[in-house]
């Protein structure tokens, strides 16, 4: 498939976008702040810094997907830059997969950059307060960053599906944010409505069915959130890692295939 030219221009267009500098600067400032905070609390310093550093990585990535990724696709459709791509021997599906590949490269690059800052912040704190890093393992930090990358790629695929379905980028943005929020909460909500007696509430059977339906429809993004395990140095079983990776890649593939089927029918008047 002729994906590389589309992926390359998407990556170049994205990496030169000023929003990337803003996101990187935000991450840097947040990590500097984590250094100041760690000097003040003198309690569970290791856990706080690891949690702050990994949260910075995932929040920066989220900003990247929402404000650079969606914009890259939206500009193509709104300003008709897509004409320059589709007037080549490139099908609509190839365009979509090429764009996705470029965006995935952009996510990996940005997460690597912000992840480097995060690791630097943890290293500095570890050097200053080695006593608070008893349970700490680097493996979990890197696994958490890799999980974040995978969940951002999945979220990008979802935003591509929405962009294929609707005509305005604002609706794509809203739907992507909703999916992100639902994706993070759905696992807990399902557990709650399935065992309401545990917290002494009553839930209608229809609500249970709706939540169960949503659980299988929306991505379970909480699977990719192991910040707490990383902060507390709790082991993550290998089987769980394999399942999460397969789930992330599988969900992304299904969403992208669906998006490309819809997109290949779309006209650009």
């Amino acid at each position, binding site marked *: 498939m*002729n994906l*590389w*030219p*589309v992926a*390359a*221009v998407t990556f*170049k*267009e994205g990496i*030169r*976008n000023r929003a990337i500098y803003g996101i990187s600067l935000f991450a840097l400032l947040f990590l500097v702040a984590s250094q100041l905070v760690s000097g003040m609390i003198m309690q569970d310093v290791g856990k706080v810094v690891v949690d702050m550093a990994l949260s910075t990585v995932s929040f920066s990535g989220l900003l990247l997907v929402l404000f650079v990724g969606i914009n890259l696709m939206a500009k193509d459709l709104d*300003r*008709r*830059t897509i*004409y*320059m*791509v*589709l*007037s*080549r*021997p*490139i*099908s609509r599906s*190839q365009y979509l997969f090429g764009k996705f590949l470029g965006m995935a490269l952009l996510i990996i690059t940005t997460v690597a950059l912000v992840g480097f800052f995060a690791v630097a912040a943890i290293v500095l704190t570890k050097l200053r307060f080695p006593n608070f890093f008893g349970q700490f393992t680097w493996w979990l930090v890197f696994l958490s960053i890799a999980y974040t990358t995978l969940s951002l790629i999945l979220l990008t695929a979802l935003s591509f599906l929405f962009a294929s379905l609707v005509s305005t980028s604002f609706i794509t943005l809203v739907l992507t944010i909703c999916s992100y929020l639902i994706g993070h909460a759905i696992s807990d909500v399902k557990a709650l409505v399935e065992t309401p007696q545990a917290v002494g509430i009553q839930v209608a059977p229809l609500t249970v069915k709706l939540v169960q339906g949503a659980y299988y429809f929306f991505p379970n993004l909480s699977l990719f959130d192991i910040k707490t395990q990383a902060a507390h140095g709790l082991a993550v079983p290998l089987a769980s890692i394999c399942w999460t990776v397969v789930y992330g890649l599988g969900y992304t593939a299904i969403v992208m295939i669906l998006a490309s089927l819809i997109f290949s029918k779309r*006209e*650009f*008047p």
Partner: protein
Amino acid sequence: MIQIESVSKMFKEGFRGRKVQALQDLALSVAQGEVFGFLGPNGAGKSTTIKILINLIFPDTGQASINGLDVRDKETRRHVGYLPENPYFYDYLTAEELLWFGGRAAGLSSRLVRERSETLLHKVDLYNARKRPLRTYSKGMVQRAGLALALIHDPQVVILDEPMSGLDPIGRKMVGDLIVELKGEGKTVFFSSHILADIERFCDRYGIIVSGRLRRVERVEELLASQLTLEQVFLDEVEKASEGVMS
């Protein structure tokens, strides 16, 4: 060559989905090596026809082909160069990168892309600006970058939608010279324009489209022999269309 057979296209507009007939039973063929000018008032269906040829939109009925291949086949576009009306390109790419994209996407080798890119950038007078991001370009420069992009893969068929729009007299002369050069190389050129003098100057044949219907196709020589000006013919066709008279 370009072949359009009985193509109709309807759009839905607004919240109520009001139907607008953009093209009605359009049939047209342009031979290899011919320069064809497509003339019509705003909203007549010129860009719709061109977008069907590039497969950006799909006809409701009928079909179109280029060099014998249905336009829905992406391979058709390996031999087609297209300049959209008011082209927009990626803000942060340079002209050099834009041409790299166009050439590589059409399957050209990196070496060939470099060679053709250099030649074309000189031709459209953007060589000195080749490393500047496209967002710093003037409208005319963007148009010229678009022309270079349309020609980077040395296409057999060149489709230009209002190629003169936004260009100063020097830019218009450059486009005119390019069309003549393409004709000399035996390429098929299909272009839409509002500028009647350009049609008279560069085209072998022209067609007038009004309200989605092709009302007249004739050779420019025939027009010149008839002692009528293109302006008279054009206004006459628009008037007849508004009165509901068929050509």
